[in-house]
């Protein structure tokens, strides 16, 4: 027996790692290498040399504007998604609403957070688009949305559309965090003389803050990388980074193949940064909500 395990001891390490070989091959071929190709490509010239030029070439008005629009779009849709999602989650957890509302809301949030992309754009076009249901109803009542400057096929139209999956994502993440607020904290604060507002200001919101900020970062990254909804809604009209990259991949509209790499690299940087913030804050908040 001892001899057996001694013999096995030497051989054991490599053999066991074989078990995850398929997964490792998959990860390398279809996740890691493609990403590395982009990162490396962003620093390569057309003949393979190292250069910063591609990144520097990003500094055109059009591309700068696309990044800025993307950032604005992501910030605003994430911010609104956080606020509205929080309000709805708080309403369900603390608002004294009937207990039966919570489960359908969670289920619907699960569905809605996955209902993004082309069909979502269609749904909004059919509702508040130029010939949409609400648009027509309002026109019958004498309110002309167009005259007020509202156009679905625009930046703000996209923001409103993005909220359809941003809000549910916030609800799904924040409801467990709200559950983590122990009843005793609220009661202890009350006995010490605090009003509800004081409790939220001094205890609950600070405790939730890492969770809130982290989810905001997640929502930001989510919006930044989204393509399909924007493509179907505003198409080439709206100058955001994913659309620009899409056009570049399809047909090298920028005239410089390596610029695509740089664009994509910029996207990776931003989404990785946002997601890192999310993960760090998530870990932090879990420590408090234990």
């Amino acid at each position, binding site marked *: 027996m001892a001899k057996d395990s001694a013999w096995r001891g030497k051989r054991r390490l490599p053999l066991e790692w074989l078990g995850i070989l398929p997964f490792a091959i998959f990860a390398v071929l279809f996740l890691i290498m493609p990403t590395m190709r982009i990162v490396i490509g962003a620093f390569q010239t057309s003949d393979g040399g190292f250069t910063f030029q591609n990144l520097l070439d990003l500094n055109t008005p059009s591309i700068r504007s696309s990044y800025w629009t993307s950032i604005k779009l992501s910030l605003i849709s994430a911010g609104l998604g956080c606020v509205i999602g929080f309000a709805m989650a708080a309403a369900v957890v603390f608002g004294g609403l009937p207990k039966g509302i919570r489960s359908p809301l969670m289920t619907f949030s699960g569905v809605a957070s996955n209902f993004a992309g082309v069909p979502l754009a269609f749904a909004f076009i059919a509702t508040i688009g130029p010939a949409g249901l609400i648009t027509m109803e309002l026109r019958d009542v004498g309110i002309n949305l167009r005259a007020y400057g509202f156009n679905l096929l625009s930046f703000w139209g996209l923001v409103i559309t993005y909220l359809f999956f941003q809000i549910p994502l916030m609800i799904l993440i924040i409801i467990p965090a709200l559950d983590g607020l*122990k009843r005793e904290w609220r009661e*202890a604060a*009350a006995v*010490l*003389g*605090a009003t509800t507002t004081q409790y939220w200001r*001094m205890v609950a919101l600070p405790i939730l803050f890492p969770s809130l900020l982290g989810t905001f970062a997640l929502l930001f990254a989510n919006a930044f990388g989204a393509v399909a909804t924007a493509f179907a809604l505003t198409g080439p009209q709206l100058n955001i980074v994913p659309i620009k990259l899409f056009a570049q991949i399809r047909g090298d509209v920028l005239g410089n193949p390596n610029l695509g790499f740089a664009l994509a690299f910029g996207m990776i940087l931003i989404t990785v940064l946002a997601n890192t913030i999310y993960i760090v804050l998530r870990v932090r908040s879990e*420590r408090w*909500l234990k």
Partner: protein
Amino acid sequence: MSFLTISHLEKAFGSNLVVKDFNLQVAKGEFISLLGPSGCGKTTVLRMVAGFEMPTAGSITIDGQEVTGLKANARNIGMMFQAYALFPNLTVADNVAFGLKVKGVPRAKRDARVAEMLKLIGLTEMSGRFPFQLSGGQQQRVALARALAPSPRVLLLDEPLSALDAKVRVSLRNEIRDIQQRLGITTIFVTHDQEEAMSISDRIVVMNAGIADQVGTPFEIYNRPTTRFVANFVGTLNTFAVKVDDAATGRVRLGGAALTLPPGLAVGTDMHIALRPEALRLGREPGYETVVMGQIEEVHFMGSIIRLRARVAGELVVMDTFNRADQPPPVPGTEVEISLSGKDAIVLNG
């Protein structure tokens, strides 16, 4: 003049009456325990005093002021919870200062009071730490300081020691009692642990299924229980069936031996009496006039106390006797003489 008066308090959850006609008068500076098994309503009573539950009937008065309708944050009460409930995002100092900050006490006074409180619980060097960096006992002491900092009129404790280790539990309960006496603050303490309640309370309320079975000092509760429930819940009880020889003089017969009960207790022809473990003496002892024979079945040497199980008059009884270094405890199987006295008998009516 009662400082805290609870009068005809009642609480129903739907059709379930959890607290029934609860009455209590607490003097200023008194330490009262609400003792009982889970579900007896003791926590519900406490939460009604705190203001977290609204009674369905009855009233609560503190220092002459009717507080029954007041919200929890307007009652000027301090509370400690079983789960500590320290605010995890605030340091120890900020936790203790919370009640003062909420009232708008200026910073200088606040800091002074916090320092005073931290000195009281002996955790001055922890003022900058966060709750997750403290042990359970330390967190609970901070919780105490936090509750006392705003100088509340009444202190409520909801099983604050249940989540702690045994040793910490004992030292902390003594510390709580010590601080309570020093500050003279009226206190209600909820627990299911009778040893805890008896060791630190001025008076105990034994609760059973929503009503107060008996209110009294630990001595009274233990030695003169008025209901079977109280007698069984607090301490161990040995019950004997006895035949009444003469009800007028209180002479009864236990097994073969004669026993004289205190006047007025003997009724009818057959009755039950109960004796505490320490009332059954090993061997013959002056002052314990009745002697019966018993056979030792189990011997548990617990250090200063030796707990014996013996068969006496057909009943299996528990006896406690003190350790004596010169006298080894009896061996199981031995026949021994056991002395007892009628004056120790507890008579239960139901």
